């Protein structure tokens, strides 16, 4: 363990702005954790220590918050994380069929990360999109009225984005 985690090193200005919005520093914990999750995809122990250092609280206090909210990932997830709604409306309208389709066709299994590190999936409670059931969250975006064709298009789009990034990196 040698590297100092510095996930938030480029966000100093934004962090100060966020902290300034609240009467006490520790109130900015949730927004800071969101920044961490956007940067790294998940909230590591190192990230929690970093947030604790910035806010002047103990790591235990940060971990209380991280572990309270299921939306914060405590393990690495794929670049595209699918949060599939498993509550009543979506379940009736075909969540389980969608999950089976994702696993069979695209190899994306529940609570697992695909070998290429692109995708991961977890079941979540109601995401408030019952009118568009079955629905999922792709990272922070809502995708509703899911059909096999829609899923294919969504996955295709993700792969295209990933390819473009890889090409740009080259």
């Amino acid at each position, binding site marked *: 363990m*040698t590297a*100092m985690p510095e996930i938030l090193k480029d966000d100093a200005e934004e962090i100060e702005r966020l902290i300034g919005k609240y009467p006490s520093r520790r109130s900015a914990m949730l927004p800071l954790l969101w920044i961490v999750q956007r940067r790294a995809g998940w909230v590591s122990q190192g990230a929690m220590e970093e947030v604790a250092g910035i806010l002047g*609280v*103990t*790591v*235990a206090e940060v*971990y*209380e918050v991280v*572990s*309270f909210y299921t939306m914060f990932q405590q393990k690495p997830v794929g670049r595209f994380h699918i949060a599939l709604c498993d509550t009543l409306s979506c379940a009736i309208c075909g969540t389980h069929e969608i999950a089976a389709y994702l696993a069979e066709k695209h190899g994306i299994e529940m609570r697992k990360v695909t070998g290429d590190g692109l995708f991961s999936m977890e079941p979540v409670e109601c995401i408030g999109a019952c009118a568009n059931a079955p629905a999922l969250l792709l990272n922070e975006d809502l995708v509703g009225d899911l059909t096999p064709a829609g899923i294919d298009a969504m996955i295709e789009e993700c792969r295209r984005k990933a390819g473009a990034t890889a090409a740009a990196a080259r």
Partner: protein
Amino acid sequence: MAQVTKGPACGIGATIGYGAPAGKVGRALEGVPEDQLFTMTLNGREVKARKGETIMEVCHREDTYVPHYCWHPSLSIAGNCRLCLVEVEKVPKPIIACQTQVSPGMVVKSASEQAKTAQEWMMEFLLVNHPLDCPICDRGGECQLQRYSMEYGTSHSRMADKKRKYVKPQADPLIDIERNRCIMCTRCVRFCDEVGGDHVMGVFARGNDNYIGTFGQGPVSNIFSGNVIDLCPVGCLTSKPFRFKARVWELTQTQTTCTQCSSGCKVTSWTRNGRLYRTTPPSRQRHDHFTINEDTEEFICNQGRFGADFSAHDSRRGESLVRRADRLEPAPFGDAVARAGKALREVVERHGGESVAILLSPRATNEEGLLARKLARDVVGTWSVDWRANQQSVEAANAVSAALRVADGDLESEPDVVVIVNGDIAHQSPVLALRIQELGRRHLKKIVMLGHYHDPYLAGHAAMSFHNAPGRTAEILAQLAGVLAGEASVADLASSLGRTEEDVRELVDTIKSAQSGLLVQSLQDFDGRYAPAEVPAAGALRAALGEGWGWLPVTGERNAVGLNALGCEPGEHGIGARGLLDAIGDGRIKAVVAIGADAIDPLGNEELLAGALSNLDAFVLADSFDSPYSRLATVFLGMAGNLETDGTAFDIEGNIALVKAGVDPVGDSRQGWRILTELGRALGRADFGADSIEDVWTQVRAELAADSDATLAALELEGGTNAAQFVVQRPAGGARNRAPEHNPGNYRTDGLHLRSAAFEAPKAGTAPSSSDPASAADGFLLTWGPHVSGRGYLQNRASIAEMLLPKPFLEVHPADAAAIGVKTNQFAVLHVNGLRTKVGIKVGRGPARGTVYMSAGVYGPFDPSSNAGPVEVRIEPLDELVPDQGEALIAAESAPESH
């Protein structure tokens, strides 16, 4: 716009009550203004209550027990166990007593049918996930859950589903966590956050899955952490050292006083078959037995709780030894004491009484102190009797004595302002610091910090803090006294402190506007190096503060106040502990009597001491252990250990308390007072000493409180409270034979209390030593102070000494840390005295800028106290993190500097 008032937090969001500070629980209503009072009805009885109190507080005062788990008088209100549900007229549903404020005319029924049913149902809910493993649970027999099940619960459960189960973590070396038994009262979490000073424990996850623990399974890293064991109302947090050792009802409880530091906490020793099993805060009577008090406000530190069993160490020696032809041979106590008397008599006859020195451990009781002084002055005829081996020099020891003699302050009076000068108070006298913290946290008194080091435990509660360079404190105190007396300007003080005039004016106004105040001064930084200058300066400041103020000099030494008051000091004519080695060297001292080897252990390293002691004609050592010193003794007298001794001792605030033996002395060993009595008689004074501890106490009482007739039994603790009031007046003057100039001061002592009545500033000490570097040109000044769990003659002998040893850290000021680029938990190389030492860094606000701080006696390879004062160091950051919170934070390597 309407003014927003902050009420107590309520509802689901308030499961952890950060908001509401705990009130003044159970306080009598005397002195409360009439317009703050009103009447209400409690269980059909009309009672008085104060505006803002909760139902629970009123019940507490009125001796009406309402069952509760999460509520604790010292902690903030959480309101999450819901067990204290009571019926209130005109409220449709039962409401919780701990969080509901009373109002005029309120009618509360704590034991009505509705309340009882609600409590019964809550018990059923709390037991939903609780395993039925009482037969193997360490809490069995003193469990609040067990008790409430019987008193308030039902005999059956309707829970049909499987119980929740957790994997057992191995978080703390001292505290065992069994989460399955937890009922989520969060007392431990709030204790660590509010009293322990660090939010290291937390409630993790959510809903049915939530659990308590520490981050990354780290330890509960504060010196008060053991209290969560008592606070836990169920078997979730239990003591690892005590686990599975005994059932509590098999143990004998002794109400006594901790013998480890000057806080002098009341404790209960739990013993069986001559062995100490555990130490807890005072137990309390419940029905026909005494049991642990989970609502206690008398918290104790980990050293007192876990580190009191050194009497059971392998090196414990019960028998006495006598030197015959260069060999130490076991001898009956009577023979050994006769031999010691003969040896001492020979020295006195040949070289005179003045060639004998009698040294006492600072842990000696008043009774041992009195007899040792009498033995020296009345029997042997020497001035040389001393308890102050821990001070760095004769001047430092004299300064400490001068300060203790005139000290006139305590915390009982709840001063409005507490000014703290220097020092890691929490690591010298932990519970004193805890009580200062409570003044700030619960009673909203102002804490002001001055000096070169600010106790990090208290700094979080400080209203103001002003740092200065080490060695400059005396100057600052003198200037502050000058400003208060109108003789010096605020501008000068501001420039000395490096702060704005506005800041300093606020400090002066705070002090001036206070009705009452307390000046707390640490005497032990650098083993008292600057005490000769700082004590007179603090005394002058105390004099300038005037009426309503008090002065409380702090040393961690157990019975410093008592031994000082009884005159166990050499004065100007005798040779003190610090002059002993020189005096042996030039032949002025030919014989030494040491009561406890820790009376001489701090004087030098073993080699140096062995060299000196072997030059003596007679060395009589009364001690409990086999040690390098016992092997040098002419006569070794087996002395009872800390748990085997009766007597009295004062705490640093001047309160007297009973020290009571929990077990019989090991083997043939005797209590200290009896050894001294026998020694006196062996020296030819048949009337010396006494035949019972009660008789010695009578002699002590005659000196300290001539008019009192309190017996030792009257000082005995019953259920954690003093049974009788003991009024001490001024000490009788003429009792100190051959000590005409020993003047213990004009003591006034009210109710178990010893404090100077008329304050008189001590005279300036000789050789004030503030010529040290105030700042290091290149790098930092390493400062240090003592630690209650640091290595020491007795501390090393506790069975879990290594576990109690604090994690060694180098504390760096945040601004300095940023400048050199180090962070908490990062390793760095400390260049000191031509050595390179790898240390873990902690960023904290304790040290002044330009200085770094380390506790002494904590880190084996390098001890800062090997330096006489602050020493210049360089810090070189390493790109390496301290591996784990649970591991030693400094790698055990220390290498010479390479070039």
